């Protein structure tokens, strides 16, 4: 889904990062660094949620910000900068994950570790393992909704679909997650 400028106005999109983004578009390295520092944590969380690997996620985050900086001149404020950045983060993390064949090994390691975990971490590890068995696209929508608390409209903007489609995808991803989670939790 693409938004025209009038759409953005209609939806009342006011971007708190507009000034910084404009400075960065004008070539200010300081402005981009400030954006980087503001969003590093959230982008890392997206990457971790999709890749489920801390080291790979940190590498991916650097690549995501590199992509963002390179494409920043084309950003035209049709959505918030954060939405646009999250879109870059989701797409690149999914793409980055396709190049990793060790994902299955990571999942198995995680599953094996559950047997030795404390009760306190049990839930967290069951969730991580269940997430690992989902498709990256499913993980992306779940973490955007449950970890980043984005609305369905915002998720639609990130995933390039409308809110209804985002809702349908969320429901399906959640059902798949639930099935795995309950099997493991039983």
């Amino acid at each position, binding site marked *: 889904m693409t938004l025209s400028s009038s759409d953005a106005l209609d939806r009342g999109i006011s971007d708190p990062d507009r000034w910084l983004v404009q400075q960065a578009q004008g070539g200010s390295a300081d402005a*981009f*660094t400030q954006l*980087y*520092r503001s969003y*590093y*944590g*959230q982008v*890392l*969380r997206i990457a*971790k*949620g999709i890749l489920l690997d801390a080291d790979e996620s*940190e*590498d991916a985050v*650097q*690549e995501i*910000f*590199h*992509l963002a*900086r390179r494409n920043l001149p084309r950003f035209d404020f049709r959505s918030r900068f954060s939405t646009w950045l999250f879109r870059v983060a989701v797409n*690149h993390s999914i*793409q*980055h994950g*396709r*190049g*990793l*064949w060790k994902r299955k090994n990571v999942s198995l390691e995680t599953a094996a570790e559950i047997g030795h975990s404390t009760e306190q971490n049990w*839930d*967290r590890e*069951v*969730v*991580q393992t269940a*997430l690992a068995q989902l498709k990256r696209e499913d993980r992306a929508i*779940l*973490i955007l909704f*449950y*970890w980043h608390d984005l609305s369905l409209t915002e998720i639609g903007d990130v995933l390039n679909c409308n809110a209804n489609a985002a809702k349908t995808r969320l*429901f399906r991803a*959640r059902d798949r*997650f*639930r099935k795995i*989670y*309950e099997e493991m939790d039983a």
Partner: protein
Amino acid sequence: MRGIPASIDELMWLLSEQDDPGAVEAFERRYPEYRGELLRRMNMVRSLREAKADEGSAIPPYRPVRATPPSGFSARQAVFGLGSVALAAAVLASWVALRPAPARVETEESTPQVVAGPTNSPFAARDLQPEPAPPVDPPTATADPAPEPAPVPAPTSAITLRLRDVSLSQALAILNRETQRRFEMAPGLADPTVEMDYFDEKLEYILADLGNRYGFTAFDQGDGTYLLIPARDPTGRDPNVNVPLPPDGTLPELRR
């Protein structure tokens, strides 16, 4: 969930996602039979939220990097690549089979053509001609122009590629995408599962190494096409290339 009306199902998800004890209590009063189901969903949503990855305690400095393309690929890409290769091969084969014979220029009287054989006399052929043909301008286009020499493909740059659990044909499709070279598997060549892990290597080295490991030899056809035949050259080299042996006569081992 089966057996639960869609409206109640949606309502339970909504309650699971909102922390509103009053609403949960009201739901349980009205639908006591779904109390257990609601509790399970609330627990799952809570666990999912609590498993939120941390944002990292320290923000590393921004270090511009070049985003590397993923070395993996999807099955769709592989199918598309192989399909393209097959289609191109079919088109090429049909063109070769149906290409018309070279047009022959016939004179009006259908006089027999005189072909000068090899002779030392520069007049031997001309003496048989009734009249020397007047000079004419070279035609701008001919019925069967001489084939242009095949363009020499640009040398491939070094390749970094990591693949695992892919078939040889899929690996070749990826190499085709990366190098713009074509690879043709000769009949009888197996399509084993291969593993590739090359960093900054030349295509020739990669083909030689793969051939050594999976039992084929790649022949460079000179037009950007490599023909893979099910035979193994112990040197791992293209036999069309004359590579002198080392002074001691032993064959070098391929790097792994």
